[in-house]
């Protein structure tokens, strides 16, 4: 994986995952939106945890995923 590869981030408050490849269209983040391009005041759509308390993870998807993750 190069540094330019699209990455996944997980909320340390609730586990919500953000995938740069998928974006989060319901929240105005188009597919390919880089984590660094998301505003610093953005918060987890599920639990309100600030962007700074997400962790970049290199965890593969379960079989059949990713379907679009729906915020609760």
């Amino acid at each position, binding site marked *: 994986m190069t540094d330019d590869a699209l990455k996944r981030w997980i909320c340390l408050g609730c586990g919500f995952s953000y995938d740069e490849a998928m974006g989060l269209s319901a929240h105005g983040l188009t597919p390919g939106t880089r984590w660094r391009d998301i505003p610093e005041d953005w918060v987890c759509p599920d639990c309100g945890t600030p962007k700074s308390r997400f962790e970049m993870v290199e965890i593969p998807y379960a079989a059949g995923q990713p379907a679009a993750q*729906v915020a609760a």
Partner: protein
Amino acid sequence: MSNAFVLHADERGYDKILSTGATAAYAGGHPDAFITRCSSFNFGDYQDGRPGFGRIRVFGDEAFYHPGCSYNMHPHHNFIICAFVLEGKLTHINTLGQIDELGPGDYYAFSAGSGGLHEELNRHQEPMRAIYLWLLPDRLLLPPSYERGHFDATAGLNRISALVGDQAGTLTIPQDAGVSRLVSNTPGTFRYRPRSAGHGVYAFVIDGMVRCDGTTLKRRDSKAVWGADEIIYETHAGDTDVLLVETII
């Protein structure tokens, strides 16, 4: 060569979460109800400690006071959340359809996977004390799952008992990690062999006292060791209760 860190009870993060005011949506119950949470690792507003250990991200030593005291129903993804009830009774409600009441010795593993909500509730006057453990999963967005188990402290006396992991009779979780419990009432030497040099063990003293590779750990102290072939836990003549979380590093 092995590595280690020691975390004393009073070095942990501390939160008191009221069921009134700004945290009323988060914590429920009688107006007097509140939750106390001692965090071994960074969690929520506590960010002055370690970020975690191996796949562990949250280790909360928590107590729910007064009837109705709860974390209200709230969503999760991905994390594997385990609770080990120490005292009182915990009602766990989740969107897999479970309404479960757990007492001392009972524990559960709730893998939130592709999404699930849960509520943690004490319905009784007696305080409910539990250890909450969150682990990262080995796959994102797995089908959610819930299992419960029971640790029998009498049958498990003076040995290390596996509670969570891939051994027979344990709760299975989607991660290279496991949880064991060492309960002892007599002096003893217990040798724990991590499954590889790439694994570590976080030992948390629920009660009593233990020597871990020469370090004396008292109630609610903890020590993590990784890169060791063997970790030695020595118990004394009194009651000792230790939770051991093994994780790939």
